[in-house]
């Protein structure tokens, strides 16, 4: 005997009813899958957690989950995940004078040229943001 108890109702989708047949039975679409929306099953998508509030003016808060895209080409003004001297940063990227720079959010710091020999690498470009507490 089929039963809907004990599974938190996970097995009733709005379609199969016991008394009156559901008029929506042929129109079940299921809930929205954010993994699909954010393309998380693709090999180039990586989730990254933000630490610190240097990018608050850019709308990126501490604790935010960024969806980084390792296949997206960098573009002037985008936010990226960078590996810098053994640390992991999230910062803005700029193209100036024929090369890429990591641009600090604060004017108190100098931009850093992206040079592999200096142990600086753009790892992925930030494509989306998830904030679970608003």
């Amino acid at each position, binding site marked *: 005997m089929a039963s809907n108890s*004990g*599974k938190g109702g*996970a097995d009733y989708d709005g379609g199969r009813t016991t008394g009156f047949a559901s008029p929506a039975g042929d129109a079940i679409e299921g809930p929205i899958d954010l993994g699909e929306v954010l393309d998380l099953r*693709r*090999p*180039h998508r*990586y*989730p*990254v*957690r*933000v*630490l*610190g*509030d*240097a*990018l608050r003016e850019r709308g*990126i808060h*501490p604790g935010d*989950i*960024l969806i980084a895209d*390792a*296949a997206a080409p960098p573009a002037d003004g985008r936010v990226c*995940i960078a*590996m*810098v*001297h*053994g*640390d*992991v*940063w*999230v*910062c803005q990227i700029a193209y100036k004078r024929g090369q890429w720079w*990591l641009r*600090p*959010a604060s004017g108190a*710091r100098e931009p850093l040229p992206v040079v592999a020999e200096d*142990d600086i*690498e753009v*790892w992925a470009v930030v494509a989306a943001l998830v904030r679970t507490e608003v």
Partner: protein
Amino acid sequence: MPATYGLIDGNSFYCSAERAFAPGLRRVPLIVLSNNDGCAIARSAEAKALGVRMGDPWHLIRHRPGMDSVHWQSSNYPLYADMSRRFYQVVAGMVPRVEPYSIDEFFLDLDLPGDLHALCTALRAEVLRVAKIPTCLGWGPTKTIAKLANHLAKRHPELGGLCDLRSPELRAAWYARLSVGEVWGIGGRTAEKLRRLGVGTIADFVALDARDARDLLTVVGARVQLELRGVSCLPLAMMAAPRQGAAVTRSFGRPVTRWAEMREAVAAFAHRAAEKLRAEGLVAGHLTVFLHTNPHNGDPWHSGQRAARIEPTADSGALIGEALRLLRSLWQPGYRYAKAGVMLNDLRPEAGQPRMLFPTRDPVRSARVMAAMDAVNARHSAGTLRPLATGLARPWAARAARLSPRYTTRLEEILVARAW
């Protein structure tokens, strides 16, 4: 059959997966240790240069000169599995037919139009950019030659990570220089046997009369010889063969001396083996349990093994019950047990099982309970729901003192980036 096979292989795959998320590990000699933080199972190029060999027990080599610069990590299989998935998806996006041969090796059908060298260069670059794994890629007219080409690309950095062995002249030149033991499918003992007969290089082996090769090394050896001659005998297998058995065996983090702990451990192994069966829609008709001590610790050797035919099932509760019944007959107190395991055999599809005349379980109810448990564990994380018999504290669990975060499979453990 394809005219050209390729093999792409992740360099020091576990180390590379660790380094993808931990740039601080990129410049240090790095090794990954086996279960229980025991032996080196992956070594970065720097660690290899320092003389760390595959399988070296870390506690024995750590005091050697130069080893204080070596950084070790516990093995993080959830991470490696997910990075393997990314690696495969990138490859399969660029090459239509791919065989997943191992966690970090994929055979390719390279019967493709265009410049193969350019394609392989692009493939390596894309795997590195997207899946963050450096690789080597070799190709030739057979799988055995592709495997050898890959090995050469790995061992000779001057090749730039690529090795094309399609040309018979080029192959002949390498064959004359390489020991037959370097060939995929020729083990150390076979190579030694051949060497005693004056067959030292691959060239010597390829030149053997085919009948002699078969007499010496059976059909398997004859097939290796044909493949080395450029005659393809091994087709691409796009999917793994059906599972023959499901085994879950573990070394304990510390010796197990108490019945309660052993019972929990074996219940946990039986539960995990049952999960493997259910993931593939199989049931098992035969179950084996074993346990033993570790004489290398100075403990007296003691071992036991029992097997039994069972009513075919994939039910965790039923398999735990059968495993514990066998375990009880094996258990001898007074020993310090180092390892135990559960093996399930006689596997068959769950569907189409004949109805037992007098089943001891309600198969419908069992399937529903198991499906519900598996669904919760898939949606949340493995082990969220499990039979209580498998223990809560699990003091017998393997040591993993330096486990990196599961960067890509657990939201609480994802990569952290400092805003700058």
